[in-house]
């Protein structure tokens, strides 16, 4: 157990060292500001690179809002969100992290040399999928945020359209020995490592231990996109990233339809490869999805202790009303995530059993309109406009069923 943690810490130290070296080398042109000098209150977070765009977009809105909350997020890997709250470790963020200005410009800042404690963590998987984490640590809360998917990607030039769980088993479990054409070149099989949420999901779905994947470790979602897109052999390249990363790079990579075990056909997260409605996630037809997990220290009542973290996590989980000038729903949708209020199914645990779900205050119509640009729902300005069928309640400008 300790060896895994040490390995992850070593990776962090290397990453921090590399970041520090990079920061030093570029000091002449643009020295990073000290994170501690950013506008207070500051909230430090750590976790997966998949959530970096979400915290960047929300951080920009908050920075420009009346809240004046500054979100500083380091993204060395999903399971570092667990290390940050492991009572057996004195984990501190070092090196550099990211924050975003009110105008949307993402910047890098220098963390204190002595390190700083993260007050929240974020990843797409539950705690126990991380190596050697048997249960969530005492005194730490797990709050569920918006939905994200894991997508298999190929270059846009590839002729491939789908992949099955069994094919993924051969591609990522056997590599060049798997005979799962055309994905048989270890140098073009792009993976992550066992601290990555997307790799943990693929491992769970395909049945390949997350520590035994063949291929090249891209380290981040962004690198996975780049490695796959830039592959010399477009047909042989394959990787996997979070859905929001895949969607934001559709010009260079294409999501494959995924066919789970005993599923009769492969499905995209969306109703077609070119749409953005995420209907197959929302209704349970696409298998590789889950909520964002947000972690923070809590008191005996389960309330987040740090006030800034309580606000930020509350905005995303829906337990705290955001400032009037911050529309978290729009931020979530524009980032490519699915708000829980747009879901029609829920699941129990990581890639666990599905069940029907009806949100208390549904927003499926609004989601469709914002994400895909159209909806068949009736528009409304009040409940009086919602008189036909079962959709009797006006929410976000559309008639919903409740």
């Amino acid at each position, binding site marked *: 157990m300790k060896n895994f943690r040490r390995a992850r810490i070593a990776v962090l130290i290397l990453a921090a060292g590399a970041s520090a070296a990079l920061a030093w080398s570029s000091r002449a042109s643009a020295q990073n500001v000290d994170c501690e000098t950013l506008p207070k209150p500051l909230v430090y977070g750590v976790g997966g690179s998949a959530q970096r765009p979400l915290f960047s977009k929300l951080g920009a809105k908050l920075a420009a809002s009346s809240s004046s909350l500054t979100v500083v997020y380091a993204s060395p890997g999903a399971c570092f969100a667990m290390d940050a709250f492991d009572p057996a470790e004195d984990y501190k963020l070092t090196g550099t992290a990211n924050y975003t200005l009110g105008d949307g410009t993402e910047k890098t800042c220098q963390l204190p040399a002595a390190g700083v404690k993260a007050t929240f963590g974020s990843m797409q998987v539950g705690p126990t999928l991380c190596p050697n984490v048997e249960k969530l640590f005492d005194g730490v809360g797990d709050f569920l945020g918006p939905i994200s998917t894991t997508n298999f990607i190929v270059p846009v030039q590839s002729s491939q359209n789908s*992949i099955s769980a*069994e094919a993924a088993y*051969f591609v990522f479990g056997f590599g060049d020995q798997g005979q*799962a054409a055309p994905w048989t070149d270890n140098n073009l099989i792009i993976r992550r490592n066992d601290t990555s949420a997307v790799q943990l999901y693929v491992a769970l779905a395909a049945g390949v231990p997350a520590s035994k994947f063949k291929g090249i470790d891209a380290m981040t979602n962004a690198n996975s996109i780049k490695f796959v897109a830039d592959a010399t052999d477009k047909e042989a390249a394959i990787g996997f990233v979070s859905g929001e990363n895949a969607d934001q790079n559709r010009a260079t990579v294409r999501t494959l339809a995924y066919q789970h075990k005993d599923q009769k056909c492969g499905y995209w997260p969306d109703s077609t490869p070119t749409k953005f409605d995420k209907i197959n996630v929302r209704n349970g*037809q696409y298998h590789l999805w889950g909520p964002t997990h947000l972690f923070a220290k809590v008191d005996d009542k389960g309330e987040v202790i740090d006030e800034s973290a309580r606000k930020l996590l509350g905005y995303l989980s829906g337990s705290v009303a955001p400032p009037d000038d911050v529309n978290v729903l729009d931020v979530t949708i524009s980032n490519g995530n699915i708000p829980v209020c747009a879901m029609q199914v829920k699941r129990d645990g990581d890639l666990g059993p599905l069940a029907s779900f009806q949100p208390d205050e549904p927003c499926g119509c609004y989601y469709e309109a914002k994400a895909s640009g159209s909806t068949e729902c009736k528009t409304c300005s009040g409940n009086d406009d919602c008189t036909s069928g079962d959709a009797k309640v006006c929410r976000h400008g559309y008639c919903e069923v409740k």
Partner: protein
Amino acid sequence: MLIHTRKTAWFAALALVSLLTWTACGDDDSSNDSDAGEDAGRGGRSGRAGRSGSGGKGGSGDDDDAGTAGKAGGAGKAGAGGKDPGKNCEGPEGCYSCEPKETLQYLNHCTDSECEPFDNATRLPLLKDGKLPALP
């Protein structure tokens, strides 16, 4: 006597058909879907289709079990109704047309979405009889 025999035979046939149809299709009662869908969920597929799936093997939580693979091809015991008399959960191209209640029913329920099948049988030479070999 002849009439009686014919009636007996007719009722026997009816009972047999009812029994077969009862066991063949998934149904709305999730308590028995595990059994009902064991065979029904393995219908074959071919080509690109807009709709797919059917009531399949019930249950879930097998995500960490890589030991078996879905069978390709084969029509499965589709066809007639489920437990509810006259209720047929077999939709176009074998999709599950009743209200889904279990994971595989959600994965295979009838939809207007596009889909793209991956033919394990022809594309994965190392997959033998639907069984995945141990990892190297």
